[in-house]
């Protein structure tokens, strides 16, 4: 089923919360409002026309100029073939984008829908700083709960992949050396 038809189905079931669609690009995607995203996700997986049972990846993108974060979910539906021997088909490949404000980035977690989302969301928080609410593996931070860090040490400040990330010059006494002391080194 083409992404446009999927967008149609979503529009007439959820109406306002599907804020925008983007099909001319190489990565056709539907934009969903952050607060309605868990219901849409559950619908995408459970609806028998769509059955998007495979979450391929969550990519967090930093739009510094218009002060927004975007979390791009790539989904697909793996359907078994007619008989046991022939191959499963990958259909309904679609991407969903969720915008969130850059200074207070909160997106509800979909780890309860797809178990794969658990680690992807922790990585998105750890590197980009997007806070996923009621994440199964969340930790009490300064401002409320946030997913536990997965790659960086637990007491690391800042989120490295943000465009305006300042390199820490020292961590637990270990000096950091960059070329000509640039804060944002270009290799």
């Amino acid at each position, binding site marked *: 089923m083409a992404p446009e038809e999927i967008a149609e189905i979503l529009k007439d079931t959820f109406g306002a919360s599907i804020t925008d669609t983007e099909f001319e*690009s*190489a*990565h056709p995607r539907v934009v969903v409002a952050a607060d309605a995203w868990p219901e849409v996700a559950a619908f995408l997986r459970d609806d028998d026309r769509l059955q998007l*049972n*495979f*979450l*391929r*990846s969550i*990519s*967090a*993108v*930093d739009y510094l100029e218009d002060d927004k974060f975007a979390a*791009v979910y*790539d989904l697909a539906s*793996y359907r*078994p*073939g007619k008989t*046991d*021997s*022939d*191959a*499963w*088909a*990958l259909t309904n490949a679609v*991407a969903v984008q969720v915008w969130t404000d850059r200074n207070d980035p909160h997106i509800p977690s979909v780890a309860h829908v*797809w*178990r*794969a989302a*658990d*680690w*992807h969301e922790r*990585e998105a928080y750890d*590197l980009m700083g997007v806070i996923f609410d009621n994440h199964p593996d969340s930790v009490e931070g300064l401002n409320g709960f946030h997913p536990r860090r*997965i*790659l*960086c*040490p637990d007491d690391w400040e800042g989120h*490295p*992949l943000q465009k305006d990330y300042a390199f820490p010059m020292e961590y637990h006494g270990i000096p950091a050396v960059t070329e000509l002391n640039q804060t944002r080194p*270009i*290799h």
Partner: protein
Amino acid sequence: MADVILESQPDINADLSSDQIQQQDLQTEEMLVNMGPQHPATHGVLRVVLRTDGEMVLEAVPHIGYLHRCAEKIGETVAPYQYIPYTDRMDYLAGMNNNLAFAQAVEKLTGLESEITERTKLIRIVFAELNRIASHLVSFGTYGLDLGAFTPFLYAFREREYILDLFESACGARLTYSYITVGGVTDDLPERFVDITREFLDYFEPKVHEYNLLLSHNHIFIKRTANVGVITAQEALDYGLSGPVLRGSGVNFDLRKQPGSGYEEFDFNVPVGQGEKGTVGDCWDRYIVRVSEMLESVKIIRQALDKLDGTEGQETLHKKGKTLKLPADEIYYEIENPRGQLGFFVRGNGSAIPDRVKARGPSFCNLCVTEKVCEDVLLGDVAAIIGSIDVVMGEVDR
């Protein structure tokens, strides 16, 4: 003694004695054991914290990040053709496949894909499949090591040596090739490459049956792997597993069989776990899927080599590869890496340097299932399960 749990009789006069008597069984206190970043069974720097009670592992929590080299941050500072060497170092056992994934993602994004010649596509497929064989040989060897059989490791590396020599004759490197770049391959094949590869394939094919005799159908090996670490098909899809781990659970899904993967004209079948020695989705199934995939790759390479003879003259590197301008658009493209589906999300902003590069590493997704699978297993099984999931830490930590 583990599975024979002697249920002790309830203590009749329990209520008489002091209040702190709770459970009847002998309560040995649990231990937190660090199957630490430095441990022979964890391939590379993976730390698994095991909460054990005697020999029984109650809970296994993997901790990653010890090999994090900020590959994605660097992606935002270099042009695509300069980023290829970084993709080599993600899954360092399958350098060619990583290069292919990133190169095809950028080509699809910039529309360069239509100008790739037929010869380049065939060379890319030959090298990708050879690298798949080399990667599966390493996982077959190290899995034998995890279970205590030292000899298969040496045989696997003896065969892999020939593949690395083939790669070295083509691109000069043995592990980090950077051979497949944006717009084609760095240079054409050396002259006798095709018939030496054919000789290698004839030499290699009977060896796989020898391995099956030596390890796969060895009774002790089956005892150690059958019915251990079972992952059902539904769980595999839910956890986003891919590659031999997904196929081991009975899901017959291979990206190479999907339309638009460039493998349409080759006929090969996809080995799937049938629970031959135990239940579907146990360690043995994942292991046997990898070993039989090597045979399938041999078939593909043979067919690709036959087609290659006809495409002598075509040039294999597109000039525009180095001077690409990325459109202000994004793309997510996946290919079938030996360990699973390696996907690249690339977003350009009009300039030559991408705005965001994210790599979806198959080992990263496959590893998250260890927490669920390693519950209430024996200490020996944890090594078997992590070995069967075949994790490469370079790809997990990026």
